[in-house]
């Protein structure tokens, strides 16, 4: 049976083999180009979780009002009817009070999640995924690529600079394609990994450059400096015609505008005169100082070039620990590989060819100044003209775009994608700042793609943050927020403040331990979810549509063993709480169902019928549920224009972020008006490097940085229920603390020694040391997804390791007030213990 792996973001197309009513084998679907017909070891082992002895198979109600890690909830089995009525009653009460007080948290959005929430009056959130993940990523790609994410154009690229990410090695949207294309093109691609830790991606790279944590922006800006100021490598025609690089900037950092039309001005070097950006300009100047309207002004690119001079390789070597010669060499290699000015012919069309890309992820996001890190990375890629052109950095999950009055590209919201909201949360034009209305204070983050970490602050200190919308109910599924959030202690405090918690749980994990009512969740091999994320179009791959199909029934009592999606429970709750008609209205509007398929309020539709209508509306009348169950794979080649939109004229993109100035002023004004303590100093129009708190240790004996890294054998927390993968992790040292051999020698430590780790904020943990040369000498690392503590879950048999997030501090010093990122580079000291006790 053709179906979809749901263990990580890549969502591979898979084939499940069933014998005697059991799944006995999982393989990649050879017809699915998105994952190149392959499945990873995690995916192939996915069916082992079906046998979990800890599986929840019926609704449970808590009898012990006391909550906390290790506290017995006193579960009492209740009927489905009781559970549904109990939860529906609470929903009704909240709906009549203020719908925003329902906090819907899910990482794995199902087809109806968004419309169900829209109809109730709230929105779904993945919560901790937004603490330190895409904070430096999504906004940048929305801004310059009208896309949520981007990956290198691997078949055509020749140089990949991977900074703070593990492209092709760990959970991501394009892992399988990346891994196989990198392998296939090994000889012609140079992959350089810049990372404090030589993780699995760096281990397979051509070169690993260890960098001091939290200094990536300095390194990237130094590359910009060398390219512009030393080598003169930048795509001048592209920057002149398709970016705001020639817009003139005044002394106040703002665009210089035409007094009559208010349009930004450029300097025409051919005529020696300033003209509006949309006037015929023969030679838009990128450099120089000019006198316009009685004032000295400079093109934005001149400002960038001057600012970049601060980041000489020699100065940056001091910040990053990377030798100056290496910085210059990487800049030379990147610049040469970019082949600025080159073209390539694809399908008869001549296109720019820029076979070099920088790719970045969590390593740039999990810092105090995450937004600036993203600016720096995007600037490097933009100055070579390497966005969405052959060989360059390819956006995917694209939005539509428009030109603003300033001639700049702005991603647009659009309905019609089943399963997703109207998004996107584009940084430009910045949202207007208003007093907080959302649980996560989103109104105070006008350029961020989300602000979920600030929900922790708002819930724990509502008066301080003027947070009058306080969650009265948490409805949570596939987002183990007690574990993945702000650390065990803080999340316990937070969850205890929410009066009523409902979990959809496969096992009683760290979050379900806090639930008042638990509904059993389906395994992904039991689900029918055809439309969760729509088409997959990473890189220059074809557009591929497929989804989850049930190969087994869940082990629930009849008739609930017929469930194929947790959305059916949501629909039942909506019906009992009196808002099912609103769900239909929301489906009609947000899925853009044409009149033939529109849902009629007052009627009742099965989940299968809803999916049938959604499928037909999206894919055509012959591709309803019957087609989906029988086949369910649609592969559509994309035209050159669809694959490489960067090669065609479109509105200008940003190298200079003027909108940040106004956004910052608005934030400052509103927070001052409300008396909310806030740091708006990060709203600057150009990338800069600023040190993280860890760069100033509170005492000299805190001599190491501590970071976390993803391993390929776990997919966030989703695979913690798999005993095989847990065993692999244990054997490979998943529960150990990686430390450089020199640091170990200095501290008298050897492999396997027990140590105490203490952060300079006073948080402590214990673990065993693994000495290695594959880490920066000043750094120690633990693996993400380690340190689980739930008793009623599979991983309770494993040596736990260190729970990294419990060492974090979510205070003003460690949070980015622009991107809402949580700084997760810690300063620690390590001391030897005589034993684990």
């Amino acid at each position, binding site marked *: 049976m053709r179906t979809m792996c749901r263990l990580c973001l890549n969502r591979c197309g898979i084939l499940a083999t069933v014998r005697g009513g059991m799944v006995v084998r999982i393989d990649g679907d050879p017809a699915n180009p998105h994952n190149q017909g392959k499945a990873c070891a995690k995916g192939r082992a996915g069916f082992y979780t079906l046998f979990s002895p800890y599986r929840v198979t019926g609704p449970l109600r808590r009898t012990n009002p006391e909550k906390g890690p290790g506290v017995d909830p006193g579960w009492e089995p209740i009927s489905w009817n009781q559970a549904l009525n109990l939860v529906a009653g609470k929903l009704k009460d909240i709906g009549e009070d203020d719908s925003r007080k329902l906090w819907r948290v899910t990482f794995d959005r199902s087809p109806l999640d968004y419309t169900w929430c*829209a109809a109730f*009056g*709230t929105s779904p959130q993945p919560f901790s*995924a937004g603490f330190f993940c895409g904070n430096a990523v999504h906004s940048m790609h929305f801004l310059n690529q009208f896309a*949520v994410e981007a990956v290198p154009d691997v078949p055509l690229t020749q140089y990949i600079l991977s900074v703070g990410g593990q492209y092709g090695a760990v959970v991501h949207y394009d892992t399988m394609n990346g891994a196989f294309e990198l392998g296939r093109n090994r000889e012609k691609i140079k992959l350089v990994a810049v990372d404090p830790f030589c993780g699995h991606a760096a281990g397979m790279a051509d070169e690993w450059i260890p960098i001091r944590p939290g200094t990536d922006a300095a390194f990237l800006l130094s590359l910009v400096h060398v390219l512009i100021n030393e080598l003169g490598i930048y795509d001048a025609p592209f920057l002149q015609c398709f970016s705001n690089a020639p817009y003139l900037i005044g002394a106040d950092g703002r665009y210089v505008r035409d007094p009559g039309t208010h349009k930004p001005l450029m300097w025409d070097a051919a005529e020696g005169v300033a003209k509006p950006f949309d006037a015929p300009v023969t030679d838009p100047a990128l450099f120089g100082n000019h006198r316009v309207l009685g004032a000295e002004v400079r093109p934005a690119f001149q400002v960038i070039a001057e600012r970049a001079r601060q980041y000489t390789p020699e100065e940056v070597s001091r910040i990053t620990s990377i030798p100056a010669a290496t910085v210059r060499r990487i800049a030379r290699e990147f610049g040469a590989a970019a082949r600025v000015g080159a073209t390539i012919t694809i399908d008869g069309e001549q296109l720019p060819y820029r076979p070099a890309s920088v790719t970045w992820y969590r390593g740039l996001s999990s810092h105090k100044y995450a937004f600036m890190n993203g600016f720096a990375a995007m600037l490097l890629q933009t100055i070579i003209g390497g966005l969405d052109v052959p060989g360059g950095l390819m956006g995917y999950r694209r939005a539509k775009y428009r030109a603003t009055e300033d001639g700049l590209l702005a991603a647009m*919201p659009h*309905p019609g994608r089943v399963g997703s909201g109207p998004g996107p949360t584009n940084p430009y034009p910045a*949202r*207007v700042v208003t007093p907080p209305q959302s649980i996560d204070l989103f109104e105070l983050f006008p350029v961020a793609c989300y602000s979920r970490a600030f929900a922790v602050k708002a819930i724990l200190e509502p008066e301080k943050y003027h947070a009058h*919308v306080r969650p009265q109910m948490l409805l949570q599924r596939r987002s183990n927020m007690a574990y993945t959030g702000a650390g065990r202690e803080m999340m316990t405090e937070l969850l205890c403040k929410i009066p009523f918690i409902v979990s959809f749980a496969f096992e009683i994990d760290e979050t379900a331990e806090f639930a008042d009512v638990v509904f059993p969740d389906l395994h992904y091999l039991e689900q029918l979810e055809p439309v969760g994320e729509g088409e997959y179009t990473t890189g220059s791959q074809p557009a591929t549509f497929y989804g989850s199909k049930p190969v087994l029934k869940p082990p629930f009592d009849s008739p609930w063993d017929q469930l194929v999606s947790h959305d059916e429970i949501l629909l039942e709750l909506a019906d009992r709480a009196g808002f099912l008609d609103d769900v239909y209205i929301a489906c009609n509007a947000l899925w853009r169902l044409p009149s033939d398929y529109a849902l009629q309020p007052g009627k009742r539709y099965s989940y299968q019928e809803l999916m049938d209508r959604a499928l037909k509306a999206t894919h055509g009348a012959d591709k309803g549920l019957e087609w989906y169950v029988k086949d369910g794979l649609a592969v559509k080649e994309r035209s050159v224009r669809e694959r490489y939109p960067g090669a065609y004229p479109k509105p200008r993109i940003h190298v200079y972020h003027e909108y940040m100035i106004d956004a910052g002023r608005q934030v400052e004004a509103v927070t001052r008006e409300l008396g909310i303590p806030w740091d708006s100093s990060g709203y600057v129009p150009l990338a800069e490097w600023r040190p993280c708190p860890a760069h100033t240790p509170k005492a000299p004996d805190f001599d190491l940085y501590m970071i976390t890294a993803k391993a390929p054998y776990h997919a966030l927390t989703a695979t913690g229920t798999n005993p095989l993968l847990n065993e692999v992790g244990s054997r490979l040292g998943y529960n150990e603390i990686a430390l450089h051999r020199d640091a170990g020698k200095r501290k008298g430590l050897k492999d396997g020694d027990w140590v105490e780790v203490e952060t300079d904020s006073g948080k402590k943990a214990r673990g065993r040391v693994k000495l290695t040369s594959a880490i920066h000498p000043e750094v120690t690392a633990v693996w993400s997804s380690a340190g689980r503590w739930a008793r009623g879950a599979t991983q309770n048999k494993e040596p736990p390791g260190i729970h990294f997030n419990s060492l974090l501090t979510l205070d003003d010093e460690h949070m980015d007030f622009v991107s809402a990122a949580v700084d997760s580079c810690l300063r620690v000291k390590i001391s030897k213990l005589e034993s684990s006790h």
Partner: protein
Amino acid sequence: MIEARIHFFGPIRGLVKKKEQLVVLEEGATVRRLLDELGRANGAEFRRYLVIEGATVNPALVVFLNGESLDEILNLDAPLPPGASVDVMLASPILGG
């Protein structure tokens, strides 16, 4: 007269305290006129959220007119079509990490 039916979706519903609203406007009324009316009818907090400057609505709000984004229509001074259906919601923070 033009009748426009406005649906409020998502958290914005908590702000305006209603699911939908019927607005009756004079013949030839524009999108801007409709938004002004919505702002007037739904209190200061919502008005502050809405903010119409020139041809732009606060990007925090996503407004669809007969299924088409206002960002796409661009011209707030275009007349409303008869029987207009208007969906108002908040921009949706993205799903992934």
